[in-house]
């Protein structure tokens, strides 16, 4: 899940009486779980909100290559290096499907990238944290892709057809990543004392950033109502976060690691684990650009784009020459 704090473009949820005929027909489709397709009529605010959400998700996949790329050259075995390369390749592929989904809404990839580079669009807060040891790579697969799956499985039911289909495809690959990540961290947790220490450090550092991925608490998530009515968002932030905590705590225990939060406790009455809130002031700081890696991540992406300009221009010029030669020959 790589979309957080998406501001819903809307003046508030309209009642049926307030809707135009077109809007009512649109809402009926959504209520009956009929997917909205690119050529269908849709309210402008629905379109705008989806572009923001899908765009942010795409950017997250692309920026997400960086913290993992940080360890590709240091992967400890050939197999681990191959697994990590395949994973990063998948992430870049997810970026492509998602940009394509955004294009079906009339927004070009170049424009979305420009907005990202100008700081006007965001990517998931999680990628502003560093990967500091090899266990972090296992933890990213297990916790970060794990959190993404919880959100994305819900989004498979989202109302916009191309987005829903992208989620179905992406979830299959993410599940594989999460399993591989858990396997990698198992090796560390059950390894030498130094490896166990790395695994513990990874869980301690990444736990709260991972549960922040679901966005602010429902009470502070004021934009959700319209997105829920449109089924752009399918479950609330707190519901998804609880689901993630419930599935992950037993996995940490299985690894024999200390829980990263002393308040994690099974609550018999609720049938869920209790846990501490993350430090939301940290979250809002990361979103604002003050996370440990925000500046470097954007510097890397902007440099890659700027340094690559001559390549894109060169290939385009060549394609145009070829097309012109073909026309001349006909």
């Amino acid at each position, binding site marked *: 899940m790589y979309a957080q704090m998406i501001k819903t473009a809307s003046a508030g949820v309209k009642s049926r009486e307030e809707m135009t005929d077109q809007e009512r027909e649109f809402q009926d489709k959504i209520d009956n779980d009929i997917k909205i397709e690119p050529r269908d009529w849709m309210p402008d605010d629905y379109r705008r909100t989806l572009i923001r959400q899908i765009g942010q998700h795409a950017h997250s996949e692309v920026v997400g290559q960086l913290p993992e790329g940080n360890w590709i050259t240091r992967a400890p075995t050939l197999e681990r290096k191959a697994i990590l390369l395949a994973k990063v390749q998948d992430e870049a592929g997810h970026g492509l499907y998602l940009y394509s989904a955004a294009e079906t809404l009339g927004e070009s990839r170049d424009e979305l990238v420009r907005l990202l580079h100008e700081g006007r669009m965001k990517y998931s807060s999680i990628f502003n944290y560093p990967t500091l040891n090899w266990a972090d790579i296992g933890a990213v697969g297990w916790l970060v892709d794990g959190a993404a799956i919880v959100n994305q499985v819900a989004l498979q039911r989202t109302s916009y057809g191309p987005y829903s289909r992208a989620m179905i495809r992406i979830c299959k690959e993410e599940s594989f990543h999460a399993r591989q990540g858990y396997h990698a961290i198992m090796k560390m947790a059950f390894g030498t004392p130094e490896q166990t220490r790395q695994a513990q450090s990874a869980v301690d550092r990444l736990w709260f950033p991972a549960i922040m991925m679901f966005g602010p608490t429902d009470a502070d998530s004021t934009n959700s109502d319209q997105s829920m009515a449109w089924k752009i968002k399918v479950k609330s932030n707190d519901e998804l976060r609880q689901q993630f905590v419930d599935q992950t705590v037993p996995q940490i225990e299985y690894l024999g690691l200390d829980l990263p939060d002393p308040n994690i406790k099974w609550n018999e009455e609720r049938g869920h684990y209790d846990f501490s809130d993350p430090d939301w002031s940290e979250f809002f700081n990361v979103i604002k650009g003050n996370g440990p890696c925000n500046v470097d991540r954007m510097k890397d992406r902007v440099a890659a784009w700027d340094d690559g300009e001559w390549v894109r221009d060169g*290939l385009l010029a060549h394609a145009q020459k070829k097309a012109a030669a073909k026309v001349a020959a006909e």
Partner: protein
Amino acid sequence: MSVDKQQLLQFLLRQGDNTLVLGHRVSEWCGHSPILEEDIALANTALDLIGQTQMWLGYAAEVQGEGKTADDLAFLRDAWDFRNVLLVEMPNGDFGQTLLRQFLFDAFQSVLMGRLMKSSDEQVAAIAAKASKEIAYHVERSADTVVGLGDGTEESHDRMQAALEYLWPYAGEMFESDDTDAAMAAAGVAPDPAGLREEYDALIGKVLGEATLTIPDSRYNHKGGRNGAMHTEHLGHLLTSMQWLQRAYPGCEW
């Protein structure tokens, strides 16, 4: 004719170290390429190269017969024991230099693999058969990109010409022959690389011509990688990152 194990080992290390070192170099691009499609393509190329490394070095370890694995060979040898050509350890430079290096290597591999598929050594033939499918795609892609950038804008042309001039003196080492090559040729395991030059020159001549690039006149070439006599200064730094975890935490399972 029976093959000298030491010579076969040298031959296999040359194959595996080429793909290992180049795979590592290509993987350094992760997340930094000019466009998303290229991030995917570069990761895919690196992945193929690492996969080929697992096969070559896996077989090398078996031939060596000391109970070692492909990982031991990749992560626990020092630079002087590496047998890759200097070309693959050269730094990435800009995207054009990376793709030109890739093309010079892919073209060689595409010529070599055709021969290795007919190797008298069944395992060499099997590895070559598997790798050749990937290499056919690699050379097509690197050739297309070299043509696109060479015959693109004035800037892209100039950058590609500069890359060719920088890398050209490293192409010739791929065709050096020594006792190991003679032994492999005699046993029908692999061709003498010197005999592949003509086919290679025809292939790259066609692509570089289409790319409007000029091949430098000089045939002088640097060497010392494939026999380990003298690598570049770059290899040590590459191994420093690649081998760090295995060196810092010896004997672990990962």
